[in-house]
């Protein structure tokens, strides 16, 4: 059993806007072990980004506020840490890379400068040392002729190359935890695969832990050990990758899995998207957030929000219904449809 690197308890983040309070993250708890890759999946607006940005208190305040929770990183509580001390963790021991490499790099600074500024800040390197290291890093992430590209500006790179630059920036100070917030969403499919391979390889070489955010369960399968599924600011299911694919417990996860096209199957199954709209986060969650869209909804779902409970070894799910009943219903439904 490896050591826990990150332990998140009851993390709760809200936005106090003119339209009302947005309940973006509603008391989520999870952990990440050293050197482990944990994927967070969920559809747009489910609180994935806000959830991870809250970890290092990157939420713009106002309007955002972390109203509750504890984040223990390597034995240290981050929520009580002074801003000054937290800055020594950001970019240094916990690094983040973001979704859109087009807009996430500063357009008026050379990429060299954008890498070296972290090194100078956290590793106390001088100009020459940091430039040397920046070249190494660009090399590491597979940017050809790295030395000659140091003084180029972001607009001189393609999308995929920019994301490699972002990764180089993220890795610059040898972080213990790398948070990748949908780093491949803006890229086309072949580049996506390259970036995923790259990060996976680097993790093995460098031994850091990764939180990989995506709304694509298909991406997760190859690289993560565990998956956390979020819906409406809640964790509704968490399990090892294999368990989640083989034995999903939550109706929402079932829906997600059914919506992945299976390329390996002889006959291509029709893509089954989940009906209905994502929930309105302005409402105080008082029932199961998935109830309005759930095929298996019962009376109780509207009365109380189900807690996240252990349903099997290393497997948590938040649903009032028993998975075996759901499977029966599902089979019956499918059989009926086929007849």
């Amino acid at each position, binding site marked *: 059993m490896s050591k826990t690197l990150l332990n998140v308890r009851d993390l709760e983040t809200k936005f106090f806007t003119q339209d009302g309070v947005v309940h973006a993250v509603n008391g989520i708890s999870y952990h990440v072990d050293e050197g482990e890759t944990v994927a967070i999946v969920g559809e747009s607006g489910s609180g994935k980004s806000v959830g991870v940005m809250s970890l290092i208190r990157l939420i713009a305040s106002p309007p955002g506020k972390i109203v509750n929770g504890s984040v223990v990183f390597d034995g240290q509580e981050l929520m009580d840490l002074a801003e000054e001390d937290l800055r020594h963790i*950001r970019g240094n021991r916990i690094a*983040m890379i973001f979704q859109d490499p087009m807009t996430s790099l500063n357009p008026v*600074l050379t990429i060299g400068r954008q890498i070296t500024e972290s090194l100078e800040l956290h590793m106390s390197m001088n100009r020459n040392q940091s430039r040397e290291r920046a070249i190494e890093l660009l090399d590491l992430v597979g940017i050809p002729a790295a030395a000659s590209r140091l003084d180029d500006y972001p607009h001189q790179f393609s999308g995929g190359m920019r994301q490699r630059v972002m990764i180089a920036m993220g890795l610059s100070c040898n972080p213990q935890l790398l948070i990748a917030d949908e780093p491949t969403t803006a890229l086309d499919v072949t580049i996506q695969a390259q970036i995923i391979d790259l990060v996976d390889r680097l993790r093995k070489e460098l031994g850091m832990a990764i939180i990989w955010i995506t709304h694509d369960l298909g991406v997760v399968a190859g690289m993560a050990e565990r998956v956390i599924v979020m819906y409406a600011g809640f964790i509704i299911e968490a399990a090892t990758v294999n368990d989640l694919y083989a034995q999903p417990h939550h109706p929402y996860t079932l829906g997600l899995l059914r919506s992945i096209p299976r390329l390996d199957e002889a006959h291509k199954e029709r893509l089954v998207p989940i009906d209905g709209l994502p929930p309105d986060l302005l409402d105080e969650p008082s029932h199961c957030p998935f109830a309005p869209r759930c095929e298996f909804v019962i009376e109780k779902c509207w009365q109380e929000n189900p807690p996240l409970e252990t349903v099997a070894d290393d497997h948590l799910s938040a649903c009032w219904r028993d998975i075996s009943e759901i499977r029966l219903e599902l089979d019956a439904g499918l059989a009926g449809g086929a007849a």
Partner: protein
Amino acid sequence: MTRYIIRRFLQAIPTLLGISLLGFTLIKVAPGDYVLMTTFDPSITAEARDEFRRQLGHDQPIPIQYVEWLTGVSLRGGDVVDAMVPMSNSCHYFGSLGFTLCDRGGGLLRWDLGYSLATKEPVWDMLRSRMPASFELGAVVLVLVFLFGVPLGFLSALFRGSAKDQGIRLLSVAGQAVPSFWMGLICIFVFSVLLGWLPVGGRMTISLDMKFSLVDRIRHLILPSFVLSLAGVAFLTKLVRTQVLEVIEQDYLRTARAKGLGSLALWTRHVLRNAMLPLATVLGPAIVGVINGALVIETIFAWPGMGRLTWFSALQRDYPMIMGAVMFYSALTILGYLISDILYAVIDPRIRLQ
């Protein structure tokens, strides 16, 4: 870059010609002319005025007058060589075509702005003698505009929503709304007439020895430069505020924060540079604003600059003088915009001039 600059200069030529045609026409179609404005003596008859106009060539159609101003060549119908004193010897009558051409000399195309009707001095000399005063005021105003506009805009954005921000924004709206002539008169009344702290106008205290005194010069500069820079400061404050607020919303700022940068590096390295980009583009308009404002402010404060000269020339319909000022100002404006574009390209690596 050099090619770009050369091309811009070449492009400026048709622009300036267009401006000159438009300016000339506007002056000529405006009610009143030089002769009327300068011959108030009731004993002068209408006939005498017409004769005066004929001598000046002001009786001719506007296109003919324009060509005359532009090229220094006069065109008249019929054989009028003998009537064209004092330049009869440079005139030629084209009998077969039935018109007379006279070369008066000068003309814009020969790089000559002509002579002022009122003073008979060369227009260029008159402009040049007023330039030091104008540039002095203009430069001080530009410096003040950037010196106050940029930090105020920054503060406003930094403390957005707070009382400080509200106060700055209120002042900025007021600064743009209050007419400068009114503000000028109020300032003169309060600080010069009532309190007697500062001189009423002029560029220096007139004395026998005319010794240069920096303190005296500065005392004269305070009111006109303050009033003239108000609108610019207000405009720039608003622009910088909007710009900063936009930059801090950008994704790359989140990246910078996620690196653990302190607020100093964050603001100077990441926010400032990006927020400053559009400032380069306001340099051109700022010059135009200062020039426009100077017309009124130099007049109110009796500042011996080009603005005041232009204002009085306009009142007198001294058209060569007005045209000279218009051409000079236009060239300056075009230059200002060119400098803006070059500056922009220098600070924004994404822009390539071509």
